[in-house]
């Protein structure tokens, strides 16, 4: 773009200003709503216990990995509700975009906040309750300050996901709905106007950095408090939890169940009758051989990519979180750590379109002939999951009372002993959860896979898109069956990793 100042001219127009403003407010509103529903959700699903909890924890995570066209089809369910359809489908799809954002990101709020909440001491709350404080009072005065860190962290992350979610806006919004991300896509792929694209990327980068600085500023409050005894039993849900339970119940059945069940029901319907035909069709190559690889082959490719993505992003994510969470001797966070934190979050806020073009230009020849290898897909996918892995592990590590480490140190434990014997057992659940997220991101990811994978390296989502970009009931039915498979796989993975191990496993062992 040079230093001519052309890009500055190109970006400062009222048109651009209005789409930047829209990007910000829709993302902020979506993040706010996700937190509003996510905090009671985290309370019910992580701070209280009830039968079936583990399943629901896994279930709410499924939307996060769904390809956007499947979200769009699921959301057609709301069309049948006369009152809602008026509200949601008017205004060129903006309300439905915000609902879909909340639908996809709710589990992030619940899990990030809930992950820290499980480690909180109930003793303080019990004391406040004894003093006559109601649940709500106890929450605002005792619990909330301890959760501030995770709430800010979840909020910033959801904000960035919503600001950068390009597919969702494209598929649910009409021609008049524009975000920075869709505009970047438009000017690069359709107009090849790279100087304008560069200007937009700059705005997006500023937005990303600002979001993190704001989040860091908000989370300056008291760090999470850790007490080992609190892990031994989480109280069961009782009558006084009714408001939180009701909010969560209505939210999950209304906003999460309905679209998912719509997709699954369509998978089991052929010609208005119940049938397994769509699933048996998955063995083949679609109506008239639309697919060049079978769904089974695509499934194996997906599995292989997911394993590599998960390993890579957990390795890098844990190392980075470890580094970020080491306090300086005076207890402050160093400039180096702050800078690194932001650098690792950049891929979330940076346009997938830009990432795609970057890969294309960098890896197509010369030094790194990466382009022609299937490994390029899992590597690109890890870039998308590493920030999330860090955002989950880092707050959990900082929530551990530093006194535990210091005591161990005075007992002459080595840093690796402290890590393996104290920190890992405490954050074990968070580590499992991050592993699950990294895996389902790889499984559901469409953009990078479609852009980077060769024909015989297609994944489940790319095959799904091939099916749904053709007219015909059989292809549509197969696409719905493939979506149901994705839902099933994501649910099983998240169920497997959401551990509720017996307390003695979770008690940190002293070296």
């Amino acid at each position, binding site marked *: 773009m040079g230093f001519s100042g052309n890009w500055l001219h190109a970006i400062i127009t009222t048109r651009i200003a209005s789409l930047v403003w829209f990007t910000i407010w829709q993302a902020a509103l979506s993040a706010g709503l996700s937190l509003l529903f996510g905090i009671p959700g985290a309370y019910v699903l992580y701070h209280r216990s009830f039968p079936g909890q583990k399943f629901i924890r896994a279930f709410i995570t499924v939307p996060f990995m769904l390809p956007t*066209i499947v979200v*769009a*089809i699921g959301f*057609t369910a709301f*069309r049948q509700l006369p009152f809602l359809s008026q509200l949601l489908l008017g205004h060129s799809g903006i309300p439905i975009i915000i609902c879909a954002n909340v639908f996809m990101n709710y589990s992030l709020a619940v899990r990030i906040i809930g992950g820290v909440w499980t480690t909180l001491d109930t003793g303080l709350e019990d004391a406040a309750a004894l003093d006559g404080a109601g649940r709500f009072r106890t929450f605002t005065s005792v619990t909330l300050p301890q959760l501030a860190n995770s709430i800010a962290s979840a909020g910033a992350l959801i904000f960035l996901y919503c600001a950068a979610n390009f597919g969702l806006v*494209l*598929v*649910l*919004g*009409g*021609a*008049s709905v524009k975000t920075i991300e869709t505009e970047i896509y*438009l000017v690069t*792929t*359709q*107009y*090849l106007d790279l100087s304008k694209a560069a200007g937009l990327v700059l705005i997006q980068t500023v937005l990303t950095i600002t979001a993190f600085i704001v989040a860091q500023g908000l989370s300056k409050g008291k760090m999470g408090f850790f007490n080992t005894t609190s892990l031994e039993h989480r109280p069961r849900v009782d009558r006084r939890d009714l408001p939180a339970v009701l909010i969560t119940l209505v939210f999950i059945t209304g906003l999460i169940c309905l679209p998912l069940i719509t997709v699954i029901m*369509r998978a089991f319907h052929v*010609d208005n009758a119940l049938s397994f035909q769509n699933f048996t069709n998955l063995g083949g*190559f679609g109506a008239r*051989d639309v697919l*060049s*690889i079978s769904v089974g082959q695509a499934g194996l490719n997906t599995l292989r990519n997911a394993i590599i993505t998960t390993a*890579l992003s957990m*390795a*890098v994510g844990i*190392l*980075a979180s470890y*580094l970020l969470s*080491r306090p300086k001797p005076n207890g402050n966070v160093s400039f180096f750590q702050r800078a690194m934190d932001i650098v690792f979050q950049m891929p979330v806020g940076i346009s997938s379109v830009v990432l795609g*073009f970057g890969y*294309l230009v960098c890896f*197509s*020849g*010369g030094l*790194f*002939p*990466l*382009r*022609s*290898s299937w*490994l390029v897909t899992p*590597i690109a996918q890890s870039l998308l999951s590493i920030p999330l892995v860090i955002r989950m592990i880092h707050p959990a590590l900082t929530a551990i009372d530093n006194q535990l480490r210091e005591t161990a140190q005075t007992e002459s434990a080595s*840093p690796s002993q402290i890590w393996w014997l104290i920190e890992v057992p405490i954050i074990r659940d968070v580590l499992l959860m991050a592993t699950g997220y990294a895996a389902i991101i790889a499984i559901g990811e469409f953009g990078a896979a*479609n852009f980077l994978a*060769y*024909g*015989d390296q297609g994944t489940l989502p*790319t095959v799904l*898109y*091939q099916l*749904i*970009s*053709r*007219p*015909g*009931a059989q*292809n*549509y*039915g197969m696409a719905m069956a493939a979506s149901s498979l994705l839902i099933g796989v994501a649910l099983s993975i998240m169920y497997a990793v959401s551990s509720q191990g017996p307390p003695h496993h979770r008690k940190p062992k002293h070296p």
Partner: protein
Amino acid sequence: MKFSRKILIGLSLVVVVGLVLVVVNITGNKKPKDVVLVTHDSFVMSKELIADFDKTTGYKLKLLKAGDAGSLTNRLILTKATPIGDAVFGIDNTFASLATSNNIIDGSLSATDFGDVCFNYDKVWFAKHKFAAPSSVSELTLPKFKGLTVVENPNTSSTGLSFLAATVDMFGTSQWESYWRSLKKNAIKVDNGWEAAYYTDFSGSSGKGAYPIVLSYASSPADEVRADGQSQTASIMDGCFRQTEYAGVLKNAKNSAGARAVVKYLLSAKFQASFPEAMYMYPIVTGTPIPTAWSSFTQVAPHTYGDKLDFNTNRKSWLAKWSAIFE
């Protein structure tokens, strides 16, 4: 002690990334017999045809998808010094002049197939509501068809761009904008992609949407044949755009000979016969057999509009004017 740990972790990070790159360098080197065909996202080639190509030519065909026709062309322009493949399929007549003026093609583009972008309507819906479906695109602005039509955004969909070009040709440079303004006043819905328009908004597809008229292809009704042997949809044979797709050898291709073999194969009788079933397009080579479902439920538009317009010079201004109406 603290500092050295930092270095240690930093180093191990570098090692992980380095290892990955080494592995990739070893496995990623392309064999000389490989030939890469870059296509748009809708390209379909059956396993049998790929195997047949490999067997008859001795090359190993690899397919690479690069977005819709517009993204495909622009990506190839961006990477023309070291192209991402050897041959290209799927540049259509709306982008062909952009490709040739940017010198990304070695030799010339060869037409491989064509299809007509036309409106489809839901016969069942119109029978149920007891009034006649429109027979021309001008009727879509009439009050009785208010709120019944869904089209694709020409900025993000080649189907949408095709119909925009058809309206420019039909109504002329002075009138096409007022046609679109009347469409907007008649509550036309604009989606960004064909998938959303056809499967979430159109009532005649499996998506069972709320709009009985959709911008799609003249061939689509052949795929909506119900148990009674009748298609639920039909095409409006007016205001159609003839989309022609091209293939060519890329400049600076690593395997030009292989690329030429690919283009030749795309024009062979075997591959041409696969176009209707796999890609829902008509083969360009005359005399290629057409499936029976096609002859009963689809026809080639008797007259098409817009395909002779100069897209290279006008695309941006058409899109800007269209966007001014719909934003």
